[in-house]
Structure formats: C-alpha cells, structure tokens
C-alpha cells in the first residue's frame, strides 16, 4: 500500500531537516514544485510527504561577500535574472535563467530546484501507463535501459540549465544536512548515474550558491531546443573564460551529469572540443537524434569561441 499523502510547510531549514529526519517514509522537499509536481502527475515521484521549503525566507537572499556573490537556493529564476548584482557580474546567469521553461514558471521555479531538477529521458518522462506499456526501464526499477537498446546503464539526461552556467563560473554549493553546513564545488554533487543523479543525501538542503567574484569572467551560453521557449534542453553549453586565460566548458543534456572540460584559451581549441565531445554519453532519448546533438557540440563551442574572440 502506498504511504498516505501529506504536506507540511517548513518554517526554517532546521524545521525542514527535522521533518525529513523524522519521516519514516518517502519525502520530498518542495521548492517551486515545478519539477516535482509534474513528476508526481506522471507517477515518477511517489513521495508521500511533501516538505514545502518555499516559505523559508533565509534562503531567498542575494548578497555579496568580499569574494563571492551568494544567491539563496529559493531565489526564483525570474528574480535571479533581474537582479542587478547578477546582471552586473554574471550576465550569463541571466541568460541561462531566461532560457529555462516559460516566464510564468520562472516566477515559481527556484535556483535550488533547478540544480536538482530530475534527469530526463523520452522513455522515462511519461505516464505510469506509458511506462508500463513500454516495459519499465532501469530508472523505473525495470531490468534494462530501453533508450540504449538494453544496456544496464541509465543515460537519462542532465538538464539543469543553471548548473551548466554556474559550474562554468566555478560556483560552490552550500548545503545543510543533519550533520551541518558545507560548501563544495557545485559539480561535485552530480554522480553521473542516471538513476540517482545527485550525490546529496536525501535530507540535504541546498542553502545557497556561491559564485567567485573578481575573476572577470567572460562567458557565452547556448541552448539547443526546438522551440524558442518552454522546452528542456537538448544541448546546453556554457563557456567561461577568466582573467588568467583559463577556460571552462560545461555541457548539459549530453550525459547524466554536467560534462566539464577545462583548458586554457591559448591551447588548441580543437582538441578541447574533441575532449568535450568524447566526454559525453548520449543515447537516443531526446527529441533530437543523438547524432545531431553530438554534431552540434563543435558548432556551439566554435561559435562561443568566436564570440569570446578566441578564434
């Protein structure tokens, strides 16, 4: 029997953590809920307890320290895109935020939720009826991956657009869990396993994102999708070049985690591109074919290099 459906509004991070700690069944933090509620509708999320953290004001601040811009996890994407400190320092974040979902969704969708938005696959983001008809795949406790024609590995795509941009800016993520607060590089929370893409403990709460100031980043962001709005990514690329000439390429939509390629602006960019391409792990589980998405990587990266006047 499924667990009773409950909903509790958390008043503070501590409250949320203790609700999570005490929960005997499955639970889910709810920030904007724009990802969770769709997954629930499709039967991909059967968490009984929804812990709504959206009312925790402490997580909704944007502030700056000497070294970092700190954006609270509950800052919604619309606000983020409009914030002067963001626009002033990291226009790429504005661009990334504005490329997520639709304007109305961005009023609700939060930064933290975006970073943990579920991985996607055209065989998985389907109703329970559909998945049963297709034969449940690995990610729904079935025996095999359908998209890859039977592999024992899940290739669901990492789709958070914010993460791609943030990682290119060397952002850190500040997390609270029952053990305390830590700040670690954002990329380190992603496992690369399509079934459990996040390495965070399930009680962990994202408090904020820390982005280093004073690197004088110049960045370019691109997203491949069929329509100019609304759609999840088929390929997201962000490239940031810092003042020392270090270049970081981050890609989304091409692996179960963000794919990072580091280099310098002076080395052979073609080899960076081939490194990036070979780090991807794609199958045909997107509206665009795998071959096309792969072919678009060099196109997007070359364009970005041109925009950064690297070539």
């Amino acid at each position, binding site marked *: 029997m499924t667990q009773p459906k409950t909903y509790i509004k958390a008043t503070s991070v501590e409250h949320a953590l203790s609700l999570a700690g005490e929960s005997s069944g499955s639970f889910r933090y709810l920030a904007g809920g724009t990802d969770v509620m769709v997954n629930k509708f499709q039967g991909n999320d059967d968490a009984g307890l929804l812990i709504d953290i959206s009312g925790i004001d402490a997580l909704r601040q944007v502030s700056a320290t000497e070294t970092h811009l700190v954006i609270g996890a509950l800052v919604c994407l619309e606000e983020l895109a409009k914030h002067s400190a963001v626009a002033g320092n990291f226009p790429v974040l504005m661009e990334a935020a504005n490329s997520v979902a639709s304007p109305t969704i961005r009023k609700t969708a939060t930064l933290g939720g975006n970073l943990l938005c579920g991985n996607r696959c055209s065989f998985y983001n389907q109703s329970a009826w559909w998945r049963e008809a297709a034969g449940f795949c690995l990610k729904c406790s079935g025996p095999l991956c359908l998209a890859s024609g039977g592999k024992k590995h899940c290739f669901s795509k990492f789709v958070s657009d914010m993460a791609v941009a943030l990682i290119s800016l060397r952002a850190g993520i500040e997390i609270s869990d029952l053990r305390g607060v830590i700040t670690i590089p954002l990329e380190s929370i992603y496992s690369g396993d399509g079934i459990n893409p996040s390495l965070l403990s399930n009680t962990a709460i994202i408090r904020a994102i820390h982005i280093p100031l004073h690197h004088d980043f110049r960045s370019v962001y691109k997203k491949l999708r069929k*329509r*100019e709005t609304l759609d999840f990514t088929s390929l997201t690329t962000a490239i940031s070049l810092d003042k020392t000439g270090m270049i970081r390429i981050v890609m989304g939509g091409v692996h179960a985690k963000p794919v990072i390629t580091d280099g310098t602006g002076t080395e052979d960019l073609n080899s960076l591109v081939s490194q990036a391409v070979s780090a991807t792990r794609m199958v045909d589980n997107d509206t665009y074919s795998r071959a096309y998405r792969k072919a678009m990587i060099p196109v997007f990266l070359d364009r970005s290099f041109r925009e950064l006047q690297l070539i």
Partner: protein
Amino acid sequence: MQQISVTINGRPYQFLAGDHEMLSHLIREKAGLTGTKVGCEQGSCGACTVLLNGKAVLSCITPAMRAHQAEITTIEALAMNGQLHKLQEKFVDKGAIQCGFCTPGMVMTALSLAPELDSEADIPALIHRIKKGLSGNLCRCTGYKKIIEAVSEYVLETAGKNPEIREPALQPATGAVGVPRPYIEAAKKVRGVAEYADDIASKNALHCKFLRSIHPHALIEGIDLTDALGLPGVHAIATGKELPGKFGVLPVSQDETAMAVDKVRYAGEIVAAVAADTEEIADAACRLIKVSFRPIRAFLTIDDSLNDAGESEKIHDTGKFNNNIHKKVELRFGDQRKGLEEADMTAKMSFEFDGLSHGFTEPHAATAYWDENGLTIITATQVPHYLHRALAKVLEVPLSRVRVIKPYLGGGFGGKSDPFPHEIIVAHLARKTGRPVRVRLSREEVFLTNHGRHPSKMTVEMGISAEGIIRVLDADVAIDGGAYGSFGVVTSYYNGVLLQAPYKLDNFGFRTYRVYTNKPQCGAMRGHGAVNPRFAVESLIDDLARRINMDPCTLRMKNFLDSNTLTVGQYRITSNGSSESLEKVMEQSRWRERIGKMEKGRGLGVACGFFISGSALPIIWNELPQSVVHLKVDFDGRVLVTSGASDIGQGSDTMLAIIVSEVLGIAMDNIFVLAADTLLTPVDLGSYSSRVTFMAGNAAKDAAEQLKTEISRAFTKKFNIGAEDLIFSENRVFSHDKTVDCSWMEAVDILTAKRGAVSVSGKYISPKLGGDFKGAGAGLSPSYTFGACISEVEVDEETGYVKVTQVWGAHDCGKALNPLAVEGQLEGSWHMGTGQAISEQMTYSKGLLFNNNFLEYKIPTTLDTPDIHASIIETIDPEGPFGAKEAGEGAIHPVIPAIANAVFNAVGVRITRLPIQAEEILAKMKENRISEAKI
C-alpha cells in the same frame, strides 16, 4: 486532507484540501470557479494561470496547500460591476478570442506581465517583450497575432498613448455583413463564465476513468473485475462486451466499438471503464482490473500493413485482402501517358509526412445523464448530429430518446468531429448507475484518441511544357489510418481528388491506399486529406519552375483555372480568387524586388492552395437538407435563431446572427442564437469540411428572408403596400417614400397581431453537382476557395535550424461576413501550418506515442510563430450567403509548402519530409556541397 482558508477573488473560503491536490482542482471543483482552464496538467500550456498573492502561477502544478492563507485571483475577478477590465475589453475588441479556452490564462498572464512592460519602448521592442512574456501560453486558434495586439494596445493606452499598431486597417462598412466585430459571446469567454464541457456542474455526478490497453495488438483472454469492484466508491465497471454495437462516423466504416471486445487494436484503446465517486477512486479501480492479453503480431507502419498478413493477424477481419489495406481508390482523367510524353520537363519526388495532432487546447470532456426524456449528453463535439445517431445506434435507443448538447467548445480542427468511445461509455455508465457520469480526458488520452492528420508517404510526378504549362500530374499515395476507419475513406479520396485545382489539368490521376495499423486512429484535421499532397505538388512546381528558369509565381499564374469553369474531374468552379491572391502576396512581400536577391541563408517561398467550401454530399445518405435554421419572433421583438451548427471557436454563432441582422436590418443585440442542441435545434450536419458559413449561413439567410416575407405580407395587408416597396434597415421597416415608417417593435406588433409568435424555417440544399463516374462525389462542393502564401525564412547554415520569420497570405473567402473573424481563421491556419512545417509530429516507439503532451508535441509558441500578414480576397461567390465561402481550412494548404520552398530558396535544400528536420537540412547541404565540388 487539511483544512485551509483561502481568499479567492476577495472572498474568504474554507476548504478541506488534499495534501497533494492541485490548486487548479481546488479552484475549479471546490470553489466552482471554472474560468480557470486546464489544458495539459503539466505546466506546458498556461491555460490554468491564476495569481497567487499577486504573482502569476500555473495552478495545475501548484499545490493547493500553498493557497492556505493566501490570496488567489482568477479570471472571474477582473470584470467589476459588470464592466470588463480594460485588458479584457482589448481582447474582445481586437478579436483575440476564438474558442476562448486559452483566453483566461492568457489574460491572467498578460495582466501580470503588463506592469513590467515599457510603454516608452518602440513598438517592435514592445511587441517582442509581449511575445516573450506570453511564450508559455499556447493558443491553437489565433496565431497569437490579435492577442499580442490586444496586450500592446492595452499597455499603450494605459500609459496614455494612442496606439496605432494595427495593419491593415479594416474597411468600415454599413449594415451587418462585412463589419469587423468580435464574437457575440466574446465577453462571456473573456470573463471566464462561458461554460465548456468540463465546467458544467452536474449534481451528484460520478467520475469515469478508463483502463487502456498497453499492447498495440492483442487478444483479450479475460478480464477480472473482482478487486476493482470491491473498492469502496466504485459504482460500476463496464467492459466491451456490454456495448458490442459498432459505430464510426462514415456508414462504410462502422468498425469501432466503444471498448475493445475481443481484441485491442492499438496501445491506448479502452478496455474497461469505471464510474466511481471520485476520479482518484476511479483511477485506483482501473489499476485493480486484471486483463490477460495475448499479444499478436503488430502492424506499425504503412509498409507492414501492405504486406501479407495471416487471417488471424489482420487488424480487422472485414477486409477483402489478406493484408491490412483499408481502402484503395484510384481515379484517372485524360491521358497521363500522353501528358508525360508531351511534357518538356518532368519531376518525380517522394515525400513523407508524420502524423499530427489537432492540438486543440480543451481536452475532450463529457457528462451524460438519463431522465424521463432519455439520454442527455453535454459534450465537446463538433458534430452533435452524428453523435446523436451513433449514441442511438450503440445504446439501442430510439433517436427520439437522445439529446446531444454542445456547450462552449475549446477548439476542434476536426478532432472533435467523430462520435467517440468516451461519449458512448459515459452514456452507458450513466444508464447503468442511474447517476450522471462525467469524464474528462487527460492530454495524453487526447493524444491517444487522436483522429489527427494521417502519416503519409507519396510519390508524385509532374510534367510541364517549356512554356510552363502543366501537362500531367500523377500521385501515388499511401496513408496510415491507424486502428479504425474514422473519416479515412474520405481522406483517401481527398488525398487525390483535391489536387485537381487550382491549376488546370488535362491529364491527372492518383491512387491512394489507406492502411490500418496498430496505432491510434487518424481522421480529419484542418485541411482534411489535401494538405500533404498539396505540399508535394507545390514543391514539384517550385522545382520545375526553377529548372525551366521561370519565376514560380509566373508559372502558377499561367496555370490557374478560370472562374466559372469545370475541372478535369468535373468540379464546378464558380468564383476563383487564385490570381488575385497570388498577386496580393507578391505585392505585399515585394516578391519581384526581392526574390533571387537575398543573402544566403534567407529565402522566400511561394505556394497556392485550394479547398472545398462544404461537402455537397452528406456523410449519411438521406434527403434531409444539409442545414436547417429556424427563426422565431415573438412580442418582445427578439429574433431567436436556432441552428444545429456547432460553434467550435470559429465564430459560427456570430455568423448566423450577422446574416439575420443583415437581412432584417435589425441590430445584432436583437438576435439570440441557440445552437447545437439536438433537442432544440434543427439538424445541421456539423462543423467539418468547412461547410458551416456556406450551408448554415445560406439556411439562415433563407429563414431571415422568409421572416421578412412574413412581415412584408403583414404590412401589405395593413398598409396596402407592395413588398418590393419595403426597406428593412436600421431597426426600421419603411417604404421608399417613408409614408410607411415603423420601428422594428411596431413591425413586430403588426406581424404578431392576432397571430402571436411567428416561426419560419430556412434551409440549404446543395445543388446537384459532378460527373457520373464512381468516386465523382468526392470533393464535390457548391463552391471552392483559393489562396496563396509567401513565406520568408532564415536558415542557420551551421545548425540547420529554420526560423520562419514572415508569412504573407491571401485567401479568397468570397465575402468576409466578419473580416475580424476571417483574419482570425487565416492567422490561426498559418500558425498551425507553421507547426506542421517546422516542429509538430507524432513520434512512435513500437506503437507507443512518445510525445503525448504539450511539452514534447511542439506547437509553436508566440516566439516561434512568424509575423503574419493576412489579406482577405473577396470574389463574391454567386451561391454563398452574401457571396461568402469558407475561411477556416483552405488557408492552411499553401503555407506549409511556401515555407519549404523558402528553405530551398535560402539554402538549396528540397524538403521532402515533414516536419523539416534540422539534421536533414545539414545532411542535404553537405550533399549539395559535395556534388557542387564534383562539378
């Protein structure tokens, strides 16, 4: 469940809300505020937008619990003291409302957007901001153009500016006909009070949910209902054996049952139906039903189904052949072999088209109940009449015991024109339980119900003379019908016969196969049957014109049929605005100056089109007129128009009122239209084949003229004045010399004296048309429409991405009874065509539809829709009401090939598969480079 207190529209409420309940459900079902619509339930259409503490949210993905101690504003709050909000007024005035289903969400989104807009920005910048802001709200009817106009004018006016952004200015006109006006029910829709099928509360109604097959083709070996029946709250479960009667919209394809009886023919077919106290219980019960299926060989593609099949493997055992071919048609005119020999240049190409969904924003919904009058069903249908017949047949009740009511309807485009299983099932369950039973389909179920455009493959050959005269046309077409017949026999014909215009052809032939496959069935969709072959022909013309070095517009101009002529297959062409249409779009796009002079990557493309204005033959052969309209006038002076015609957002109610108003010279507000209720309204065959303006319009005109005659007679008697002396105008009836001059009320007094209410009945019967060969009836219409489009595209040569930037279109609708509505139809058609060209497709994996939601089925948003410039061409059809003919479907034909031809013009890639795939563009560009390098 938790107790929550919410303020909605200023009024405090206490609700018991489910912990995981959605706000949209709370607002609609508990607060009863059904102005908030639900179109997708997954955050991808915007229909459910409301304000939560002043911020726009999608209520379908917002937990109801979030409303606790919050303020919700829904569409119903906007109008104050009977006065529309200024933004609502703009939506009404600009004609931004068609079916109205997206409207509440659109208005709420625009309302929250408006304060962020900079009224000081220049108009293009403002419009771009509005497009961005509304980009999460899908509208399938309007092409967004009038919505964007409404919002921009609102913003500018609120800032105290005089907006002047409309183009082209509509002609002012006197009388009712030709005056641009909003739909008569527009205010009701914009206020959120117009009730759609799922909005109508039935006391004590049970909810119905379906168990659907997970196999594309399987025998049903057993169904065990025990556990499901044991679930508290379950009232009845129905299975296929209870409703074995076959139905189908065409008498020749009665091949469907309400639920699968012995076997399932597609994944998604209904196997059992539960009526329960709540949707959740009904859903849970469905999951407890155990069905043992024995899967058998599935036929999933056209090629599969053309191959031999074992007797026990055939999808339907009725077919004559040992394969799954449903229908073969072939017609030949002239001498194609000779035509080919005479041609100086020929081209033969093969094309492939994916299936399409109508994408109407309102999911199917219905409520049925029985009482002393038999069955009443309130349902989202385009064709109450055929549903009426199907219900009587399958439920085995007399026709006189069935009443079908169509409430406001959120878009159809052909997708609500068949009788549907869910309608029959809820009627059956309502009888079984003695309670009203309601159903609303999820968006996924809408996709599974399908009846959309047939996936098709065709090879088409054309030959022309060196002077550019078409010598021969031959089409070999195969269409994938899915599991059942639907309109498919007609579709099979239309794929061929509707090629015999707008160009003059002497040697023309086609062959079509329609096959059954184990997929959701296909049927009629806007432009029925002719859209894909039109694409092929217009692409061939483009190719041939280039090869003989002739401008493609010139070539088309040379070949147009005349007015008042017969086609090779004996269609009677009366009015024909082909060349005016093409001339118009050439002028507007500055074709002559620009073609051939554009930078690489940009291109212009042209195409023309043609469509029927109502099928001259009824689907079910009988001698009833195609349409009957009644008028009644009583002491109060109001003229009641009753008609079976189904307004599905195209504006037919308004059209009827306009015609009556014009004939009787009375104001529109003296007219009341009651439509699409099979008990109260006389039969009209329904809203399909673009027949309503022509046929119901003519019937309304006939009725109004009869009423005029009745009044004239009464005047003759009273004033001894000849009928020919009387003028009906400006709410008065008067003689030329004004010796008799009565107000409308006085005229009504004279008419009703010693007689009381007067009723008259008008009708339309199509003239006898066509040749006397087999198949001659297909595509016969009392009138045809013509049009042309030029589109402009930008192709990204590195990514293959195609951006359609402009569409200039012209359509000959005979006479625009309501130019605002005609423009709306044209803009909507070109938006929908753009979707088919660049992004829409139904993709399957082993018979399972992948993209069964509005996130993955890609209807163009505001940002993907080109700038649309609509021109109305008026040719005054001799038989249309006031010269009018259709405007709802014909316009979609030219836009799709115009886009593809523009792509060729931009990058030299001939599109032979829809939707256009970026990947294919790149591959073909590469091929071109290689072959160029070889030369």
